């Protein structure tokens, strides 16, 4: 059971950042109408607004490099809480930004997961 959570959670994290870095407009597929994103303190609700937020971020290309991934079962209907830390390299910037991100994954019922909760914060030095 624990191994399965590790596998599912890590696969999801890889997929999320891969989409973010290579096909940002497809990130919306990971959220649902009830999903919430807090991005540097700004609260955004639902797929449409979350997708719009990602589209509007003021950079075209970026690369997430993940340092740590911690996972636990969340006891909400088979959910998984995930805590990620890493670096975000923006194209043209000298130094990468460090960030932490918390996800709460909920099963869709069709064998995959969606993001019910997503909280993103930059880690300032």
């Amino acid at each position, binding site marked *: 059971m624990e191994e399965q959570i590790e596998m599912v959670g890590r696969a999801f994290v890889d997929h999320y950042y891969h989409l973010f870095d290579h096909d940002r407009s497809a990130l919306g597929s990971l959220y649902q109408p009830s999903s*919430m994103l*807090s991005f540097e*303190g700004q*609260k955004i609700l639902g797929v449409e607004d979350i997708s719009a937020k990602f589209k509007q971020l003021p950079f075209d290309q970026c690369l997430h490099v993940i340092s*740590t991934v*911690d996972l*636990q*079962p*969340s*006891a*909400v*209907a088979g*959910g998984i*809480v995930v*805590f990620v*830390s890493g670096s975000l390299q923006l194209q043209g910037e000298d130094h990468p930004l*460090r960030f*932490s991100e*918390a996800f*709460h994954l*909920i099963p869709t019922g069709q064998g995959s997961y969606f993001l*019910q*909760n997503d*909280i993103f*914060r930059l*880690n300032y*030095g």
Partner: protein
Amino acid sequence: MDPDAVAKAFVEHYYSTFDANRAGLVSLYQEGSMLTFEGQKIMGSQNIVAKLTGLPFQQCQHHITTVDCQPSGPAGGMLVFVSGNLQLAGEQHALKFSQMFHLMPTPQGSFYVLNDIFRLNYA
């Protein structure tokens, strides 16, 4: 009650207990609680508090920089994301940390920590 206010009150209570009376944290966890502390997984309130009271410093002070919270689903839970500084007595520089709590309601109208993940933020 406003969820942001609840989260903020919980966070203040958690860290002031941690800093003044670490063993008192036992009331904030239950049997099914989980802590991942710098990658080490610990289960249950007794083991969690043993880990925290066994940390290699006597005195510490948490200074909270950011608190984000979101409702986690139909069970009434709340996800709380905290970042801040941890000053250890005798150390010159504070450590930066991030911590994620998943709070669940108790029948008595308060919250306990079901999931707790702590990570230091290295430069």
